[in-house]
């Protein structure tokens, strides 16, 4: 099965606008999902240059999530993976 690809932006703006918890996403991932999700970081994905978009940003399977948070990402992944754990 193909892994879901998550890219977390660790840039300055994402960090100060609520994304400081995002690097810990990997540790907050439920045990049973670990083999299904691949989490990476990016120094800056560049979405912040667009004033219409709202940081922090996380990319999941190529789609951008705005105003991302650990719980929002987990919720989204839960839907994607399809079997709820909580």
């Amino acid at each position: 099965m193909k892994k879901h690809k998550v890219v977390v932006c660790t840039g300055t703006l994402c960090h100060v606008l609520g994304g400081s918890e995002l690097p810990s996403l990997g540790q907050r991932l439920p045990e049973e999902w670990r083999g299904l999700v691949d989490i990476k970081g990016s120094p800056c994905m560049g979405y912040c240059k667009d004033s219409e978009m709202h940081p922090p940003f996380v990319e999941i399977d190529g789609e951008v999530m705005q105003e991302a948070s650990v719980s929002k990402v987990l919720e989204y992944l839960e839907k994607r993976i399809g079997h709820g754990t909580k």
Partner: protein
Amino acid sequence: MKKTFIDIDYGFIPKFGQIVCGDVFLSEKIKNENRLVAVLSDGLGSGIRANILANMTATMALNFTINDQPIERSATSIRDTLPVDPQRKIAFASFTIVDTEFDGKTRIIEYGNPQFLVFRKNELLALEHQVLADGEVSITEFQTQKEDRIVLFSDGVSQSGIGRKDMPFGWETDQMGGVISQIIEKNPGISAYELRKRIISQSVLNDIGKPSDDITCAVLYFRNPRKLLVCTGPPFSKSKDEEMAATIREFEGRTVLCGGTTAVIVAREWGEQIEVDMKNFTSDIPPISYINGVDLVTEGILTLCKAAELLKHGNYEDAARHDPARLVIEEFLSHDHIEFLVGTKINEAHQDPSLPVELEIRRNVIKKIAYLLEKKYLKEASLKYI
């Protein structure tokens, strides 16, 4: 011949139970005379009173030496100025003054401190010294070479562990010389910062974690200058991206990148991947990344601001081992000449007035860091804008 750089660093740990150290170390580079003067003073007793005695002594000794006053006169002035201890009825602070020119001519004046050590590579030098008339002040004059190290310390170091069965007289100078010589033999290029840290932790260890006196150690290391390039911020014009990436690639020395966009540009220009370290992170600043060919990659402004604060207060060792700001500072402190290549493009995304004030202007933060490195840490710093 390349000019010699004097890498200098010191550290201290107060006596157990005290919050202030009774030893003081001061140093100053006199740029137009190519000269460096450093003073280590140990005040009588410990705590605040000792600190004041030592501070007064060190300040006076430093200024008298810089102004080329004869040592006898300096000693008399210092003795007459110090406040008298009401219990012991004496005023006392010992001192060691190092007065060295960059061509190597060095004079060390010592009063009451344990004998300093001079290492040529890893060999301990036996230097002759002349004793002044009153029998207490000794003067040592010699010519330093590259790869020489002068180690100064207070008696808290040489007497650490005193009374222990295996070291009844403490960490004696001979024994200490042997240990330091071994450290240098194993790490021939060890920086002043690393060496004094090793000496201090060994002293604390000798005292089984509870220093019985103020422990202070300073190291002066004569060497070829080590260069560090710190590159931060995207260039003003995109056409300069290539130039910036090439500067980093061709730099002779270690390189540090501070800034997400900067990292993206360099990786793009080099055709390299960026890997963000998602295992080690602190909550207050973003994590570091790895790019093949760069020694350290961090986020920009937040990391630099934190580094500036830590440098200002000197408490960078309190930060976590993997804290990006501490990693940057460790790079700064293990080099002698720090070159900043500052991109001047304004990040439009940072200009929103509702953002936290920590998003200072990059140029100001770099100027602050360069000033601190020169004034407080005696480094050489240069700034270039791109």
